[in-house]
């Protein structure tokens, strides 16, 4: 089947600034894609071009098989990064209005609104004015506005920014539910932990270029099998015994224990068993994939300790990173 979304060598400049510098992308139908990258990488510009709010300087786009999102508006749900509502409008009226604009009948929309508000932990806000809601609540209202018409393609630009941990979990559940309903979901975030946990596939953008386009499963295989976190039961245990285990390339002391790096080609499962036999462990686990590390490794091209890498890492954790 034709992909839900195709970008072919899309470019966009604002004056001298090349916001998007030749991006190719194909999102298959029914996929849950995460677009990640630090602030200013070009994610929002990309999404705005997909939505035909901005037009590329060159390159081609196809959205749900059409040449432009304008031709498939009713089948797309969009949560922009810069959110706004009519301050003087009631939440219920606003959502019904948005649903009607997307082709849902008035009665149908009126039925869906209270249900969706309840499920978003916003019960009874229907009759409230938008200006009386908190910023986080409004964001959830806008998420509802983006999916109330049950679109085939859901595009969410930084859906988690400004949300507390409970709302982040709620939003994640709803995004996954949209995916399960059969919708193609594309979300952007600069907090990679979010993408890591829910996306099937990630696309990394850095300085307007795509630097990675991989399924999460493949990434795990590629980047993840060589690092083991090891915490000895007895904190006075001799780390040299770990070093002598076969297949171990390097052991580094961390706060609570050690990070063990395996030599290439070593079977991780066997190595874990051998390490546990050598030193009784309190905890031994394969390091989980951290997109952040992947990203920094790719971008800083094998110089993970450099200043540039540290700055990047800071950019990936700032603000709502503290929440998520």
């Amino acid at each position, binding site marked *: 089947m034709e992909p839900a979304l195709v970008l072919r060598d899309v470019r966009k400049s604002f004056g001298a600034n090349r916001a998007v510098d030749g991006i190719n992308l194909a999102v298959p139908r029914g996929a849950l894609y995460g677009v990640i990258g630090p602030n200013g990488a070009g994610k929002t510009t990309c999404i*705005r071009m997909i*939505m035909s*709010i*901005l037009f590329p300087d060159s390159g081609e786009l196809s959205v749900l098989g059409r040449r432009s*999102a*304008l031709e498939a*508006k009713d089948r*797309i749900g*969009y949560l*922009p990064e*810069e*959110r*706004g*509502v*009519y*301050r*003087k*409008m009631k939440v219920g009226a606003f959502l019904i*209005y*948005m649903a*009607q*604009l*997307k082709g849902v009948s008035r009665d149908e929309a009126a039925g869906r609104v209270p249900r969706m508000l309840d499920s978003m932990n916003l019960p009874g806000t229907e009759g409230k004015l938008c200006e009386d809601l908190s910023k986080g609540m409004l964001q959830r209202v*806008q998420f509802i*506005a983006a999916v109330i018409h049950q679109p085939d393609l859901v595009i969410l630009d930084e859906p988690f920014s400004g949300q507390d941990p409970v709302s982040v979990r709620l939003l994640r559940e709803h995004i996954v539910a949209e995916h399960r309903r059969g919708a193609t979901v594309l979300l952007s975030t600069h907090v990679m932990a979010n993408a890591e946990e829910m996306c099937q596939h990630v696309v990394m953008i850095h300085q307007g270029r795509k630097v990675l386009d991989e399924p999460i499963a493949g990434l795990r295989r590629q980047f993840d099998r060589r690092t083991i976190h090891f915490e000895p039961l007895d904190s006075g245990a001799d780390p040299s015994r770990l070093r002598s285990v076969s297949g171990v390339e390097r052991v580094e002391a961390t706060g609570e224990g050690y990070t063990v790096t395996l030599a290439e080609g070593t079977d991780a499962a066997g190595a874990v068993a051998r390490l546990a036999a050598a030193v009784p462990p309190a905890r031994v686990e394969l390091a989980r994939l951290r997109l952040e590390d992947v990203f920094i490794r790719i971008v800083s091209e094998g110089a993970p300790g450099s200043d540039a890498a540290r700055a990047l890492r800071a950019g990936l954790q700032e603000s709502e990173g503290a929440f998520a």
Partner: protein
Amino acid sequence: MKRVWLVAQREFVAAVMNKGFVIGLLVMPAIIAVLVMVMPRLMSTQGSQIRGEIAVIDATGQVFDGLRAGLTQEAITRRRTEGARRALENAPAPVRTVADESSDAAIERAMGVAPSFTLLQRAATADVQSEKRWLTDTVPQDAPRHLALVVIHPDAITQDAARTEYGGYDIYIPDNTDERVETTIYDAMREALVSARVRAHNMDRAQVEAVMRVRRATSVTVTAGAERRTNVGFNRFLPFIFAGLLVFGIMIGGQTLLTQVIEEKSSRVIEVLLSAVSPLELMAGKILGQMAVSMLVLALYIAMGLLLLTSFAMLGLVDPMLIVYLIVFFLVGYLVFASAFAVVGAAVNEMREAQSLMTPVMLALMAPWFFATPIGRDPDSAFSVAMSLLPPVNTFAMMIRLASTTPPPFWQVGLSLVIGVASAVAAMWFAAKIFKVGLLMHGKPPNIGTLIRWARQA
């Protein structure tokens, strides 16, 4: 099209369903009602009766009796009634009928009770200086107040051999005298002096007055079909009223359009909207929605005006075609100006930034106040014709000409309308382009040159 309709509907409801709109709508009629109903009452209660003494030094010895007769309450009331009748002669026929039917009591109620004066005759040779001091004497609470001193000159009723003019009189009044005291004395003195002079010449007063009186002709307007009494006052105001309604209607919709677009831009709701509707649909919906609001307000004001005219039985003064023209020219003019307001709204981020771009629009909207008088006075002059064909003010100018005493030839009305429609189409085309580019632009507000570049780009 369905989306345009939805946007228009929301705009209309958002504009109409709020307290500000209802209050704004009612303020104007409320002010008119207050002026019509409450003011006369306030005025009449203020006219508590004036009482007091007037001292007269009559050097001629022949005017005092006449003056006293002229300053009795009955004489004052009679003069007022006559004055009111004279004033009404220029008023439209229905108003006159109403006035004729109302009794003298009504006039008295409107003007207050006639004052009650006591006249004190001083010796012909009395000292003016000491009499002036009488004016400023402190008077006990209950005693009559000293209102005025009238000094009639010795030559007031006899002509000087050298001059053709008669002498006159002086009035001295204390500080803070009700101006009605003075005006009443002026009126009575004129009567008394004329009577005394006529007597001195052994003439018959009635005859002299008959010779002097020339009835004012009632002018009749002749049209192809019928004749009607010319109504100068009303006709002079009609162009102003219609131009005012036109501008007023456009301002209501246009201003709201501007603030709404700016609000949507600054609250960033625009991006959500643009994911559902195209910029063109959004603009069309907004313009239509605000047009409906303006039409509602305009309809209410027209209805109110007609009601007012009906209650004065003056409905015949307004040609019903004028109202049809008003609506047609409103629609055309509105579309031109609404496009301009939409352009400004889409181009800027805040109301503050809108000022410089708004200046030309506001100037065009104010134009009718400058050319209403010259066009109303001379509706077929070259200036009038030129203005009624020049967009964007052609709709105003043509409306003024239509409401004037000399309606323009039909082909000019048609041509003005065609020009209006063409400029509306051009304005909306331009606005659509700017809307597309401007809505997501934030940052430095553009100037006219930038706007034109945007239009070329889009």
